[in-house]
């Protein structure tokens, strides 16, 4: 079975569209739609070459990790037909339907059912039933539509398929083609001894003999099915519709945390869903900065959030589901049973982030830059700090304004800061100053024409210590007269 690339907003079929991925020498074609394939565009070739063949080609980048995850979800979704399903490479599923096909009315009816359901998901699928993994792989990719094959028909039905159906790597395929072996049947007809001699040291991917044995069923290739993660969820069914979920929240949280504790896990996200009597559904999501299974803490995250639920005519079902479940170990640092102190800090940050939004709670760190506004970066409050190795030598103000405020110069002097200036409608007379400290623009980041700055530490007549700077120089060819700004305050 083959899953084509899933595309969100599908482009029209008559436009050649390809997905690209990064290759060794620039982007290469990852997948192409039908129109593009008809124009001779082959996956694996370079995008620039294919542009030469087809100038109107539209290129988008492939989301390979997203496709991978989607396919993993599809593996679990396909459990509706049989209990053993597994992902096959990057573009296929293998379903072990032994003993399950009669439930769908036979193999042919099952294939039709599968194709219908997959097309309802928006997926194009090529399906085949075969007694072995290898035969199903080859038939689905190179055989007829909805191919079916019994154990005794493998030789006849697969013999005519191209040798690429043997799941071999590109170098071996090239070798076989040079040997003149173009179909699977031709490889089957080669004496076994000579194939063994030729490929005695090759691995599975490069060994046509092993692949042939797997295809014919002489070598076992079992389907080892992955287990779905259990959904951790607590729900409250109510006899009467209610308008406020708050009284049920403690029980739901305790129930959920019991389930988490039994499996030794903690959750990073919580989804509260209320199902209204008129059929509408509302969600409230909260997130934590570290995995937790503390019911009181999780309950506190919903404080002031539940008011945003629109109850309508009331709701009669509340579910609380844990998302982003992670393994978690309780650490006990004190003999009398107290847990780690860090836990309290993560809980505090969770509470603040849940109430005010994650962007409000940050941690400033120093960065390698001479410009004061770029010397500080904001990271998440509990993120690990990258080693920057910033060494500070110059005196810096204790407070920085986000946006420097321009001052009006009353009495300029040729060197040094102005003797008098007006800032925030007050006249300041400069009593003493230190400087200048020249900070040049960062040419690799700033746009051309950015002016340099001369910083002065200035003390006015009352003792207020300001950080003034002059932007630019006279006659520097980057605008008019230099302007003066207040950028910070010294203690």
């Amino acid at each position, binding site marked *: 079975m083959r899953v084509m690339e899933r595309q969100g907003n599908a482009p029209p079929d008559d436009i050649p569209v390809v997905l690209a991925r990064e290759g060794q020498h620039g982007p290469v074609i990852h997948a192409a739609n039908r129109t593009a394939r008809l124009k001779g565009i082959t996956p694996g070739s370079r995008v620039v070459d294919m542009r030469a063949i087809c100038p109107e080609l539209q290129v988008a980048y492939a989301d390979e990790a997203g496709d991978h995850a989607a396919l993993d979800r599809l593996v679990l979704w396909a459990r509706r037909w049989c209990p053993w399903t597994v992902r096959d490479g990057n573009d296929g599923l293998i379903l072990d339907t032994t003993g399950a096909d009669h439930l769908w009315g036979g193999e042919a009816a099952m294939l039709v059912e599968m194709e219908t359901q997959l097309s309802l998901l928006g997926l194009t699928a090529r399906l085949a039933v075969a007694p072995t993994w290898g035969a199903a792989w080859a038939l689905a990719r190179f055989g007829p539509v909805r191919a079916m094959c019994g154990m005794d028909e493998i030789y006849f039905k697969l013999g005519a398929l191209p040798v690429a159906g043997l799941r071999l790597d590109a170098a071996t395929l090239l070798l076989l083609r040079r040997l003149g072996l173009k179909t699977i049947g031709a490889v089957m007809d080669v004496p076994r001894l000579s194939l063994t001699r030729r490929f005695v040291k090759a691995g599975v991917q490069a060994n046509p003999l092993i692949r042939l044995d797997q295809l014919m069923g002489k070598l076992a290739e079992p389907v080892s099915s992955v287990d779905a993660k259990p959904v951790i969820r607590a729900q409250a069914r109510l006899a009467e519709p209610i308008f406020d979920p708050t009284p049920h929240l403690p029980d739901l949280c305790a129930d959920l945390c019991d389930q988490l504790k039994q499996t030794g896990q903690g959750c990073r996200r919580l989804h509260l869903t209320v199902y209204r009597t008129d059929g509408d559904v509302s969600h409230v999501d909260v997130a934590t900065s570290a995995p937790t299974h503390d019911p009181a803490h999780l309950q506190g995250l919903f404080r002031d959030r539940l008011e945003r639920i629109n109850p309508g005519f009331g709701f009669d079902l509340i579910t609380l589901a844990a998302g982003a479940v992670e393994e978690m170990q309780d650490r006990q640092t004190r003999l009398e049973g107290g847990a780690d*102190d*860090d836990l*309290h*800090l993560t*809980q*505090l*940050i969770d*509470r*603040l982030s849940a*109430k*005010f939004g994650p962007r*409000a*709670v*940050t*941690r*400033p*760190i*120093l960065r390698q830059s001479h410009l*004061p506004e770029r*010397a*500080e970066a*904001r990271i998440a*409050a509990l993120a690990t700090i990258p080693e920057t190795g910033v060494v*500070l030598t110059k*005196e*810096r*103000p*204790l*407070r*920085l*304004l*986000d946006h420097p405020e321009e001052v009006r110069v009353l009495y300029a002097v040729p060197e040094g800061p102005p003797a008098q200036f007006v800032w*925030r409608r007050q006249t300041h007379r400069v*009593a*003493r*100053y*230190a400087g200048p400290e020249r900070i040049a623009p960062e040419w690799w980041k700033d746009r051309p024409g950015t002016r340099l700055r001369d910083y002065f*530490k200035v*003390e006015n007549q*009352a*003792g*207020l*210590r*300001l950080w003034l700077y002059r932007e630019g120089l006279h006659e520097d060819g980057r605008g008019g007269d230099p302007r003066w700004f207040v950028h*910070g*305050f*010294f*203690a």
Partner: protein
Amino acid sequence: MSCVTPLRLHKGLAEQGPHIAPNAHTLSEAFARHPADASTVGFVLSRLPRGTAPVLWVQDRLSRKEAGRPALAAMRADRPVIMVDLSRAMDVLWAMEDGLRCRSLGAVIGEIWGDPPGLDFTATKRLALRAEAGDLPCWLIRRAASPDLSAARERWRIASIPSVPHPHDPQAPGAPRWALDLFRARHTRPGQWVASYDRATDRVDLAAPVRDRAVDARDGTARERTAG
């Protein structure tokens, strides 16, 4: 500021002269005389206990806009800061109260602009009780505010005054000097001081309180008179 008496007292000699009681880890308020004066922040930072526990720093929008944000480059590097940028004063109080319940913090600092209606005796009393229960220093920095009724155990009024002369450059401002006014205190006697701050050693030296008295002829050198 007419004149600054140049009598300098060491922090260790505090028994005879003016002194600041050791911080009992409670709620203190610091009023800035000028909104853009960073002396308040400098004094608060110098009073925090040593250690590497993070500081929760909560600012409302107007404080951030008018008085800037704390710049990490001028603070001690070993103490991480967790900034919380909020818009309303009530949110600042909420976040501070939540922070005081967290035992792994080193201090909680809040900045509130003006006199919001929610910042009353009850609100400050809650903060003070929480700070004392958690044994955490909590500072409320207030700008453009009037010292109304409050339950803060210490209330300071702080302003910058002309700095100490620079040792090498007569043109340049030297170590900062602050006029401190402890106008209400529960555990100690109120008083007034002039403090000079040494950035290299992170130490505050207290000078004698500012009084209106005649300049001693012995001390009144020309340089210090111009500095005053």
